[in-house]
């Protein structure tokens, strides 16, 4: 991927969607689309075709890992890279998400001034490993 233009941010916490969108759009210059649940993420991802999806792990209803599996099952979203977001960033959990097929994990809380650079680096690394 040459440039990160559009990001789908999925989190049930509206405040995270607000600060994440500000960070990705105002600091990172990325178009940012939002979803407040796993179910909504499936529809938005298929319709918007983002370059990457930032997916919260713990959400009521369909959680992050389940949403991830559903995204992979759909041809329209199967190849979109996914970065998990979690407040519990322990090494064994990070490895579990990487083993699922995510390209990386971003911890919460995040620094809104640094988040776009962190995301770009994960996408760049994933691209260089292909």
């Amino acid at each position: 991927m040459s440039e990160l233009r559009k990001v789908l941010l999925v989190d049930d916490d509206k405040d995270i969607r607000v600060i994440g969108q500000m960070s990705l759009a105002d600091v990172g210059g990325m178009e940012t689309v939002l979803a407040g649940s796993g179910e909504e993420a499936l529809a938005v991802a298929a319709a918007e075709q983002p370059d990457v999806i930032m997916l919260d792990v713990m959400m009521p209803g369909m959680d992050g890992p389940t949403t991830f599996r559903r995204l992979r099952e759909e041809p329209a979203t199967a190849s979109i890279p996914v970065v998990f977001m979690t407040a519990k960033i322990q090494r064994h959990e990070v490895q579990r998400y990487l083993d699922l097929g995510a390209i990386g994990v971003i911890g919460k809380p995040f620094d809104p001034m640094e988040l776009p650079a962190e995301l770009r680096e994960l996408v760049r690394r994933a691209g260089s490993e292909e």
Partner: protein
Amino acid sequence: MAVWDERDRALTRLGELRGQFADRLRTRLERLAEQVATAHRNPTSGTLAEAIATAHRLAGTAGSFGYVAVGESAAGLERSLQRIAGGQDDWEAALAALERAQASGP
């Protein structure tokens, strides 16, 4: 310089969002305190799960708006509540973490 102008605009916007979040943070801390008090009086899996979920969300959110100490205290509270849900008596630490979160808020 354009890059610095953009950065300054983003910092200004961040300051505005932080100010707006302060009001919501007060409400969230009040709700958390009520849930912890309910769970302390009647520690069922339901009351504890509710307080754990609120503490978890606050742990992930507050620090992103610059309230780092609130987020860290909420994370400590979440850990204590999970220990309590697992059968341990960790109420002293849980209540201390809640107090720290409230004291670090806006």
